[in-house]
């Protein structure tokens, strides 16, 4: 817990670093808005289950380098950012339900569908921009949970 302020900053930085808007010229879309509009392929203002599942599959494929159907710690560790990787590995232990040290596709789906359901507060099976923004506002709470879950590591 002593490291908490630093690590919280690191998480915020993690989000910030990965979510820069497409163009410096455009009128400053926020981080979340940009990501959201990228995912909302049909531009109807919602990320539905179909759009969400493409996001899941793409992210899985991106991390399963050797295409064996599992994301391993080693595969995530190859991202050259030790500080963020360390935090991510800790955060990912919750998704590894069978505790075998790697993430199957089913574990990834289960984790991300859980977040989807958490974000979908009006239960219409799609995420509005407002819901996505509200989910992002839960970031700090989630970080505290992560910190609390693995204080010794």
């Amino acid at each position, binding site marked *: 817990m002593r490291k908490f302020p630093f690590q919280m900053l690191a998480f*915020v*930085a*993690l*989000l910030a*670093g*990965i*979510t*820069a*808007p497409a*163009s410096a*010229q455009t009128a*400053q*879309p*926020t981080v979340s808005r940009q*990501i959201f*509009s990228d995912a909302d*392929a049909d531009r109807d203002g919602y990320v539905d*289950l*179909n759009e*969400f*599942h*493409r*996001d899941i*599959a*793409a*992210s899985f*494929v*991106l*991390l*399963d*380098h*050797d295409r064996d*159907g*599992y994301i391993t710690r*080693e595969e*995530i560790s*190859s*991202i*050259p*950012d*030790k500080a963020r990787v360390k935090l*991510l590995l800790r955060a*990912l232990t919750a*998704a590894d339900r069978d505790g075998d040290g790697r*993430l*199957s*596709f*089913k574990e*990834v*789906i*289960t*984790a991300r*569908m*859980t*977040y*989807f*359901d*958490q974000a979908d507060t009006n239960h219409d099976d799609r995420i509005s921009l407002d819901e*996505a923004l509200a989910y*992002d506002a839960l970031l700090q709470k989630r970080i505290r949970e992560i910190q609390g879950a693995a204080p010794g590591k």
Partner: protein
Amino acid sequence: MKTALQRLTALVSLPLLLAGNIASAAQQIIELGGNGAPANVQLPRGTREVDLVTQRAGNCRFGRTWGYDLTTLELWVNGCAGSFRLTVADPQPGAAPAAGAPDSSNAAAALAAAAAIAGIAILASRGNQDHNQQAAYPPQGGQYYPPPNGGYYPPPQGAYPPGGGRQGAIRGPNNLCLDMRGGAAVQGTELNVFRCHGGPNQSFTWTPRGELMVQGLCLDIANADRNDGAKVVTWRCNGGPNQRWAANGAQIQSQMNSKCLDIFGGNLNSGTPVIMYSCNGRANQRWYW
């Protein structure tokens, strides 16, 4: 939320009857769930994504009434009938790179993917919008933009030369960077890995044609050798296929033969040569920028 999760788990674990048939391997279309009963079908190796094309009956919603598993390679329906399109890549982590230069940082994309699985972000994907001008994922110790509350991010001064390529270090494992040996811009100089130091002989530019330039020279497979173990050198840019590269996830593949840029023998120490080798997805073939 708990119930939804339980529902999902129950659906996935149902003992499903095999009721699907693959219409045509070439079309990569599967019809499933025709009689309304729960069903599942095996997916071919190399499947990367499945999309619902047409709903025939029921209420098809991903994760609720249909889904798939890229670990066990199964597609299932339960309360949905429809036709599904498979996106199938070569099962080996080699062939068929998307041609050309990457348009954004693969390290940032990988971090975003992991963050989404960890629940730190609800979405991970970067769309097809123009990310050429997008902020580079900052190198270690750099500043992070934009501020969390919004705002925009001006590209670093000079980071994007005319022509639109990305420029910067190409990082491998163990704090090693792709490096032109010796630092002198001489034709025929071998590529190796070296401790990352930010010098000009570690600063690479992806050109729109898929060349990788360092100090005015192009990364080049020596003598267009197509074999595993072929030497990689710098050479005057000549537009040849042995100077064209493509990013495929964290792999850098030759457009000539789809082999991968590889740290020789997996020896992760400064000075180890970089060669061409058949792609295998291992750590000594993973590069980030």
